[in-house]
């Protein structure tokens, strides 16, 4: 595993790039959603993606995760440029996303949701599970241990057998992060992970995100509207406005940028 690596901005070294966008343009029916967006997220970095509503933040995440196909430009994962990006392929390449309005499976228990994520790395085929062979039983036991670890890391072990739809929203958000962590991602793309949470829940979520980076060296790209949280959590802020990157740099510098203040934070007098 890569050590936590938040310094050394060697932009030209592809081995340091976790996920990169090259001149991405995207439009829907004549409406330009993204215009020539380039972004290089380095390994172990926590990048905060901010901008006003409709700036293209979620679209950018959808391009990175293979849900939208850009009209122009390309995406590299781990320094390798991928042409036909599909969600499944992105997930297998170690880039795991969460959804703004929750991507949980409502009819399944918390544990089954997390197991479904962990199954990405399964190597034993379904005929083995059909017959409950030794290989299937061994893999199943390991899956459950890993899933329970992921649940415990977000203090969710008591909810393991609860149906997801019976849980409060804030807990469901944590379940989604636990599921993403159970996929042992290289890179996490989080679409408003703190939305709808109370301060305590936010605090817990922030430390879970930070620990993913500090312990496993996971790269994180997150969209978040709570500027206070983003400023403390992110190593780097990228500001989008009307489909363009208008600022990119350390949080304190970006937050002081006059263009950013005008576009997003509001002009102060």
């Amino acid at each position: 595993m890569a050590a936590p690596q938040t310094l050394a901005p060697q932009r030209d070294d592809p081995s340091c790039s976790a996920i990169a966008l090259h001149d991405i343009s995207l439009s829907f029916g004549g409406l330009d959603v993204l215009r020539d967006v380039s972004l290089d997220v380095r390994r172990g970095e926590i990048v905060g993606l901010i901008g006003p509503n409709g700036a293209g933040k979620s679209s950018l995440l959808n391009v990175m995760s293979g849900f939208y196909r850009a009209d122009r430009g390309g995406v590299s994962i781990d320094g390798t440029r991928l042409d036909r990006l599909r969600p499944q392929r992105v997930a297998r390449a170690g880039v795991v996303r969460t959804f703004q309005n929750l991507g949980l499976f409502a009819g399944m228990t918390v544990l089954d949701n997390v197991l479904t994520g962990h199954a990405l790395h399964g190597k034993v085929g379904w005929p083995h599970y059909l017959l409950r062979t030794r290989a299937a039983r061994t893999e199943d036991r390991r899956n459950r241990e890993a899933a329970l670890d992921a649940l415990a890391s977000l203090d969710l072990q008591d909810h393991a057998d609860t149906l997801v739809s019976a849980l409060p929203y804030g807990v469901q958000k944590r379940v989604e992060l636990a599921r993403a962590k159970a996929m042992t991602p290289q890179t996490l793309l989080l679409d408003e992970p703190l939305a709808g949470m109370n301060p305590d829940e936010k605090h817990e979520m922030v430390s879970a995100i930070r620990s993913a980076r500090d312990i496993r060296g996971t790269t994180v790209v997150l969209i978040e509207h709570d500027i206070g949280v983003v400023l403390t959590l992110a190593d780097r802020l990228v500001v989008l406005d009307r489909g363009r990157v208008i600022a990119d740099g350390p949080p304190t510098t970006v937050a002081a940028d006059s263009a950013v203040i005008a576009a997003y934070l509001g002009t102060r007098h």
Partner: protein
Amino acid sequence: MASLPAPISVAPSEPPRAGAIVLPVAIVAAAIVPFAIGSDYLFGAVLVPILILSLAGLGLNVLTGYAGQLSLGSAAFMAIGAFATYNIHLRVPGFSLLPAIVAGGFVAAAFGVLFGLPSLRVKGFYLIASTLAAQFFVPWLLSQYGWFTNGSASGVITAPPLTLAGFDLDNPAGRYAYTLGIVAVLTVLVRNLIDSPTGRAWMAVRDMDLAAAALGIPLGRAKLLAFAVSSFLLGIAGSLWAFTYLGTVEPAGFDLDRSFQILFVIILGGLGSIRGNFLGAAFVVLLPVALSVIGGAIVGSTLDPALLENAQKIVFGALIIFFLVAEPDGLTKLLGHALRTRSSWIGLTKPRQLEQP
């Protein structure tokens, strides 16, 4: 994975799952109790059709209840299974009935994949149209060409006598034992598959296909596998319907009404439940019996069969509406509530803290 030094008090072993205990007990009970009571009517007219409709329900439940793909073509796949089994048994040397039934299941699975191909592009009501096409096409094809029925003028084929490894099973108890053996084995196998990454992938596709894709689940493969497994089970159910229940089979016996009957089994029993198929099938088979007994008691000894049939349809319609509104999770949920309440009375289990709203 070196995690936080969190207090991990979770038992690493897998938690006891209800189905792990209930299923073997149910199978053993089904293998003993009826033989103690044993009447030909019970075996031939009640238990055998319940088992077969349970298996068909299991097949549809895999597709609709677990993988979330709607289908009105269940009976078509039963017909394919029955006629494939008949022709393999008749024409391929060396195939005794049991291997022919299994082979018939595989033929049905192949057609299931074929008619499941539209699911790669469409879902919901549009997919119903595709499965409905199978429902109308297959019985038509089977009655159109005499080859399928071995030239039988009426289109009705007669089942060969039921034997297994030299034992004569051609009596109601024997048919029941034969059917029970097949249904029990398949139920255990399906349970294994549901409680595996495959089953969870199906449910993920059902609940939110975009999120499933984000977890790396190949949607198309998951759907087609569900179609294959579902049609395999339906095909076997069709063969059993022909060879251990009716003793004869004709394409018209696998019409749209049969597909609806199987849909009722899973709606009444419970979508996404294994136990529910058996409850739903028992209900569907026993309701007409109960109605005729009750009707006979009220009206007198002889009840007009046409009236009875209409009464059945009315009661069914009302029940379906009741279940869709009041208990969408079906009989299995009602039974679960009843069992939980009872065992908490006698202190066996604690009531779950957080239940489904």
